[in-house]
C-alpha cells in the first residue's frame, strides 16, 4: 500500500484527495496545512488518517512514500526539497517552481536521492490528449512536427478565482514572477514542450493588460499573451493566452509533414486533419462528411467513457497520478520526462523575462492607439538553452502508463 500525503489544503487539494481515493493500492496517511483548520476540513471530507500543521511533523509521523504539494507556487521548491531529502517521491502542482533554476535543482536532487518527481500537467493525460499522443507516436503526422498552436483561454469573470485575485492587492498570485500568467500558462506551454525536439529555442513574447483590465484600473496583471517559439530550422509553435477571446478555448493544433491533429480540451474532441486533398469539387463535399464522422466518433467515444464511469472531470489527473505511482512501484519511467518539465520552466522564464522588459502596462493605460503604435518596440527574442546538468536519463517522449 503506497502511503500518500498532501501538503497544502486549498482548492486544488480537493481534486488531489478525490483522485487519490479512486486510485487503487494507496492511502492518504496525512494532510498538512499551516492553517490547522484547513487541514482539518480536508480530513473531515475525505478518508484521511491524520492532519498536521508542519511538513516536518507530517514526514516524521505519517512517513509517506509520496507527497503531493498543492501549496501556492512560491513554496513549491522549499517543500519539495524537504520531501526529496527525506526520500519521498514528489508530485508538485503546476506551476512546478518559480523558475527553471529551481526546477533544475529539484530534478538533480531527485536523481541524487533516487526519488521521483512529477509536475501537475494533468491536462496532458486527459482521454483526448492520450489519444492524440498515441496517434503522434504512430507516425500519423509524418516525422518531426512542423508547427504547433496552443490556445489557453481564461475567463476573468470566473468568480472562484479571478474575483479574489482582482480584488486583493496582496494575493499570492501577484507576487509570482509572471503573476497571473505564471499560475495558468504552464498547461498550455507544457503541451508545446512535449513535442519540441531540440533543447534550443527562440522565444518571442508579447503581453499586455486587456482593455477590460485597464477599464477597471488593473494595470499590474497581464492577461493577454502571444508567444512564438522557434527551434532552429525545425519545429515552430505559437502560444496564445487570452482572457478576452471568446470562446475561451483550450485547443491544441499540431501539424506534421503529412497530417495534422486538432485537440479540443473543453469538449474532449480530437480531429484528424488530412494532409492529402481530394480532387476538384470533391474537396468541398467529402471532407465535411469525414469531419462529421469524426465528430460522431468523438461523441460516441465520450458517451462510452461516461457509461463506463471513466469520464470524470479530473480524469487526466487520475491517469497522471496512477502513472506516477506505477513508476514508483514498478520502476517504470516517470509519466512526464524531466526534460519536458525543465523545458516548460525555461520557456516560461523566457516569456516572463521579456514581459518585464516590455513597456510597463501602467504606461499603456490611458494612451491612445496612435501613441502606442508610435512607441511600439521591436519585439526582442530570447534564446533559451538547457543547463549542463545531465537529465538525459529521463528525456524522451511522453511515456504512457503500461
Amino acid at each position, binding site marked *: 500500500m503506497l502511503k500518500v500525503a498532501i501538503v497544502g489544503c486549498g*482548492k486544488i487539494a*480537493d481534486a488531489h484527495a478525490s483522485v487519490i481515493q479512486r486510485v487503487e493500492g494507496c492511502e492518504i496517511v496525512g494532510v498538512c496545512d499551516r*492553517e490547522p483548520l484547513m487541514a482539518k476540513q480536508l480530513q473531515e471530507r475525505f478518508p484521511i488518517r491524520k492532519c498536521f500543521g508542519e511538513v516536518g511533523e507530517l514526514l516524521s509521523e505519517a512517513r509517506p512514500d509520496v507527497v503531493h504539494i498543492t501549496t501556492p507556487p512560491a513554496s513549491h521548491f522549499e517543500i519539495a526539497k524537504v520531501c526529496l531529502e527525506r526520500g519521498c517521491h514528489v508530485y508538485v502542482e503546476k506551476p512546478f517552481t518559480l523558475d527553471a533554476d529551481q526546477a533544475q535543482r529539484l530534478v538533480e536532487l531527485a536523481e541524487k536521492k533516487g526519488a521521483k518527481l512529477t509536475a501537475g500537467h494533468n491536462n496532458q493525460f486527459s482521454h483526448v490528449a492520450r489519444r492524440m499522443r498515441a496517434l503522434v507516436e504512430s507516425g500519423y503526422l509524418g516525422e518531426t512536427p512542423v508547427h504547433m498552436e496552443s490556445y489557453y483561454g481564461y475567463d476573468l469573470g470566473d468568480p472562484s478565482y479571478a474575483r479574489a485575485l482582482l*480584488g486583493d492587492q496582496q494575493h499570492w498570485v501577484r507576487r509570482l514572477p509572471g503573476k497571473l500568467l505564471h499560475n495558468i500558462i504552464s498547461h498550455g506551454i507544457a503541451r508545446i514542450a512535449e513535442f519540441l525536439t531540440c533543447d534550443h529555442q527562440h522565444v518571442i513574447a508579447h503581453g499586455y493588460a486587456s482593455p477590460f483590465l485597464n477599464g477597471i484600473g488593473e494595470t499590474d496583471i497581464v492577461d493577454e499573451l502571444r508567444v512564438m517559439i522557434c527551434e532552429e530550422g525545425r519545429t515552430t509553435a505559437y502560444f496564445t493566452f487570452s482572457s478576452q477571446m471568446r470562446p475561451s478555448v483550450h485547443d491544441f493544433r499540431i501539424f506534421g509533414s503529412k497530417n495534422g491533429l486538432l485537440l479540443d480540451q473543453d469538449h474532449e474532441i480530437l480531429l484528424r486533419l488530412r494532409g492529402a486533398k481530394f480532387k476538384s469539387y470533391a474537396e468541398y463535399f467529402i471532407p465535411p462528411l469525414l469531419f462529421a464522422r469524426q465528430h460522431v466518433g468523438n461523441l460516441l467515444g465520450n458517451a462510452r467513457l461516461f457509461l463506463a464511469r471513466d469520464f470524470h472531470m479530473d480524469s487526466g489527473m487520475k491517469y497522471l497520478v496512477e502513472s506516477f505511482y506505477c513508476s514508483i512501484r514498478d520502476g517504470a519511467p516517470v509519466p512526464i520526462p524531466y526534460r519536458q518539465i525543465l523545458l516548460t520552466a525555461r520557456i516560461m522564464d523566457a516569456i516572463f523575462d521579456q514581459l518585464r522588459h516590455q513597456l510597463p502596462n501602467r504606461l499603456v493605460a490611458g494612451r491612445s492607439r496612435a501613441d502606442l503604435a508610435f512607441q511600439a518596440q521591436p519585439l526582442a527574442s530570447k534564446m533559451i538553452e538547457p543547463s549542463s546538468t545531465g537529465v538525459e536519463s529521463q528525456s524522451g517522449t511522453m511515456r504512457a502508463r503500461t
Partner: protein
Amino acid sequence: MPVPGFPSSIPVSTDAIHDSFVISRDDRILVTGAAGFIGVRVVEELLDRGFHNLACFVRPSSDLAGIEAIVKRHPQSVRIDILKGNLLSRADCEAACKDVAVMFHLAGGTGEKSFPDVFMNSVVTTRNLLEACLRYARLQRFLLVSSFAVYSNRQKSQYLDESCPLEAHPELRGDAYCFAKVKQEQIVVDYGEKFGIPHVVVRPGSVYGAGKRGLVGRVGLGTFGLFLHLGGPNTIPFTHVDNCAAAITLAGLVKGIDGEAFNVVDDDLPTSRQFLRLYKNSVRHFRSVYVPHMVSYSLCYLWEKYSQWSAGQLPPAFNRGRWYAQWRKTRYSNEKLKTMLNWKPRAATVDGLRLYLQSCAQGEGHA
C-alpha cells in the same frame, strides 16, 4: 438601496422596547460584511437606534456606495470608521477588533462552489475574529449571522424552529455553503464554551429585497431552458432585508440571550407556487414544470446513488440531504424572535414582495 415607496429608514423608538442593551450607545460596534446586502441595513439600523460609534469592515474591492449614502443621511456626530482589509489576515482582524464591544459578523463566503474557498472565507475568518476578540477582552457579544442551510430538516414534524437538529454530516450534503456554515457555528460555540465569549447566532431564511434578483433555489432550478418548479405547495422562508436587519440588530444588543439562536422569517409567507406565479406576472414569463415532491425526492436519491456508484463522475450536487433541506414541505416559526427580542416585521410580506418584484422587473428591463 432603498426601494421607492418603501421606507428605507423606519423610525425606531430607541428606548421604548429595550432599555437594557448589552452596551451603551457610545460603545464601539464592529460590523463585518458591512457593504453587503444585509450589512448596509444593519449599519443603518444601528444608527437609527442611536449607536454612533461604528466600525465597518469591508473588503478593499467592496462597493461603498451604500455605506456612503447612509453616512450622508446621518448627522456628523456619528462616527463611522471604514476598515478595508482581509479577515484572513490576523493583523487586520486585531486592528478591527480593538475596543469593540459588540461584533456583528456578517461577512462570509457565499456563491462559491469550492469547499476550501467557502470554508476559508467563513470559518478561518471567524476564528481570526474570535482570536482577536480574546486579545482585547472587551467584547460583550459576538453576533454570528448564519443560515437556514445548517438545518438538516429531517425532524419528524414539518415544523422547523430553533430546536431542530443541525446537519450532523454537512460534508455529505454536497453543498460547500452548508458545510462552512455548520462549521462556522461550531467554532463560535466552541470559543464560547472554552473562552467564555458571549455569542448569539441568527439564522435568516431567504433574504429578499431591492438589490437581489432571481428565484431562490427553494422555488426551483432553471436548467436547459426549462424551470423545474420543485417547491410547489412549500412555504418559502422569506424575510425582507429590513426585517432581517432589525432582527440581527436586536439579537446583537438585547441582554440575557447569550448562547441562543434565532431563526428569522417573516409573517404571512407565500407558498412557492404563489411566489412563482407572482414572479412570472411581475418580472418575466418563462416555461416551468412542476415536479411533485415524490419525483424530486426520487431524482435526488437516484443522483446521489449514481454519484456514489460512479465515484463522483457526477458530483453529489443533488442528494436526499439537500432535498430535505430545500424542498421538503416545511412550516417555519418566528415565535422565539418575537418573544425574546420583541421583534416585529416592519415590512409586511405582501408589500415587501410587491416592491421586490418591481425592482426585479426594473433590473430585467435594464439587463
